């Protein structure tokens, strides 16, 4: 009754092709944006910003990166964690070389390096498909992890082997390092994530995005229709690794403050794969939902015993956490293999025809 397009007439092709053709969607998005940009900064405390909102945005961006590759171009990659690492290390080196440059520019530039690495490791995708490709992307994961340890130039030859984030400015405000406020970091992370989401959503609707989807649906048929697999697959790897690299740089610079190789290990790649699949393949809103769900769930589980008044040791909580997350993943895959985005769509469709579902 409240959510339908009846009476909203489109008088131009532009209006018909808009991302949100329904007026209510626009209002909903505006409300959501107002919430993220105004309400949260005004109300949230440091804990919420530091441990929920900032990581959620970082992981959302990484999930979008993987979604470009897996959801839109259909190439399964298990190396997202390592590509994030490339971004983080590249950004670290860039801050060393250009200490006075705006940090946001450097973060965005660091993705270019991971895009280059992504193209190199995307080359096998021209010959190898499906699960075989997934295993070969593990080569990227393990090789890059090794490189992060064995090439001391990457972490400026310091003894710990870790990268420590220096203090840098963005538009005259302290944006990174220990004295940056969570609020500043949250706003930067949010802006970058939303900006890249907007870019990607337009990229997907254009020629490049369509060629990715054709490759995903049937690569031979796409080739016959004039799509060059070389360009389509490698551009998907490049864009996906770029986004992953930016999110890796954000992760270290605006969230963790310091990172070692373990921050980019294989479990990290799996975490993002979970977010991608649970959120829904080939859906940007799904990336947000998947990242939020997978990130917030363990926090809730950890908080649950205290809230219920049960005393459990920290170790058992961790073990039970693993069990619950594993079981929930299986449950979700069984209940709705297309992910949270599909549930969202079903919900919207139900709302559209309500109260007369037939």
């Amino acid at each position, binding site marked *: 009754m409240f959510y339908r397009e009846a009476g909203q007439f489109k008088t131009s092709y532009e209006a018909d092709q808009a991302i949100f053709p329904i007026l209510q969607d626009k209002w909903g998005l505006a409300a959501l944006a107002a919430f993220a940009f105004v309400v949260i900064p005004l109300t949230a405390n440091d804990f919420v910003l530091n441990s929920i909102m900032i990581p959620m945005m970082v992981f959302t961006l990484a999930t979008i990166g993987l979604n470009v590759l*897996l959801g839109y171009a259909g190439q*399964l990659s298990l190396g997202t964690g390592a590509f994030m690492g490339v971004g983080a290390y590249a950004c670290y080196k860039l801050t060393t070389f250009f200490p006075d440059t705006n940090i946001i520019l450097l973060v965005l530039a660091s993705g270019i390096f991971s895009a280059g690495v992504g193209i190199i490791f995307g080359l*096998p995708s021209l*010959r*190898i*498909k*499906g*699960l*075989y490709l*997934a*295993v*070969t992307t*593990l*080569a990227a994961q*393990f*090789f890059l*992890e*090794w490189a992060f*340890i*064995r090439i001391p130039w990457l972490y400026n030859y310091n003894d710990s082997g870790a990268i420590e984030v220096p203090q840098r400015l963005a538009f005259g405000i302290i944006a990174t390092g220990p004295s940056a406020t969570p609020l500043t970091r949250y706003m930067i992370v949010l802006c970058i994530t939303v900006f890249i989401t907007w870019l990607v959503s337009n990229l997907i609707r254009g020629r490049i995005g369509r060629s990715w989807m054709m490759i995903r649906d*049937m*690569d*031979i*048929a796409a080739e*016959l229709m004039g799509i060059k697999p070389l360009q389509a697959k490698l551009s998907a790897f490049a864009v996906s690794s770029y986004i992953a690299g930016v999110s890796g740089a954000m992760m270290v610079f605006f969230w963790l403050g310091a990172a070692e190789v373990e921050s980019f290990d*294989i479990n990290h790649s*799996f975490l993002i*794969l*979970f977010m991608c*699949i649970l959120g829904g*393949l080939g859906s940007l809103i799904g990336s947000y939902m998947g990242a939020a769900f997978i990130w917030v769930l363990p926090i809730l589980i950890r908080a649950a015993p205290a809230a219920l008044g049960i005393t459990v040791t920290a*170790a*058992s909580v*961790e*073990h*039970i*956490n*693993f*069990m*619950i*997350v*594993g*079981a*929930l*993943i*299986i449950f979700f*895959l*069984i209940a709705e*293999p297309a992910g949270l985005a599909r549930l969202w769509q079903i919900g919207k469709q139900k709302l559209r025809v309500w109260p007369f579902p037939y």
Partner: protein
Amino acid sequence: MDLLYAILVDPFIQMWNGPDFFIQVMWEGFVSGVLYALIALGFVLIFKASGVFNFAQGIMVVFAALSLVGMHEAGVPAWLALLLAIGVMAVLAITVERFVMRPLVNQPEIILLMATIGLTYFLIGFGEFVFGGEPKTMITKELGLPTGSTAFEVGERGLVILQHIDIAAMIMAIIMVTGLAIFFSKTRIGRALRAVADDHQAALSVGISLHQIWAIVWFASGIVALTTGIMWGAKSDVSFALQFVAFKALPVLILGGFTSIPGAIVGGLIIGIGEKLGELYWGPLVGGGIESWLAYMIALIFLLSRPQGLFGEKIIDRV
């Protein structure tokens, strides 16, 4: 020029000059290759029968070994603990088939892969919850496995040391593969398994129960996992770090092909030996530690010329 010499010539001179070390390295590589092959075998069994890329094979190895050791620590005699561990794997197989595989029939392979990663998380949590997270020692003696070692003289001054447990591992692997081969070709269930592997729908239409077959293959790879767990546990400790050995089995798989049992064995040996030789002779050139990714690179190079693996079925696409 020096670099080329260091890559192409020097390692071989080292091999020639130190035959005892070379044979020792080959043997070590061979043994770890056998164990990789065993893990890959567990993968292949499940992939052939159900098209599921079972990521949980590594944690199944840990889980099987842990339940064996855990029960022995609780006071159960070794032989009974072994039987009970087999029982645990059977229960696991039936549970997985009933609650994970059955509801997910006909889903795309990535969803099935994700489900087994979910299963991995669950088993990690469950295993740590029940048995605790700290490493345990494998009950090698109690199971009647040899623990000594024999030294052979090679050349004039060299010594090659063979651990008896490694020889036992090799013999067990041979017995297991022979047993599986006989099981597949001679028994009624084995033939049904091959029928399912060939064509699900045709197998269904002649009255083969898919559920039953899937439970059986999960059980079979559970037994393979238990054997691997015992052998690997005897070489090091039984700990959750063992599951990362499973990542080594993945290049073995793509090298041999997902569907081929001989491929798993040959691939395992190539990777095991290649990795040890590469680490010890070529590793120092780039600072060592290349064992973690060398296997993938070997597999990748093979794959570029044969995208379906050495023994895999040819992939035919239809438009």
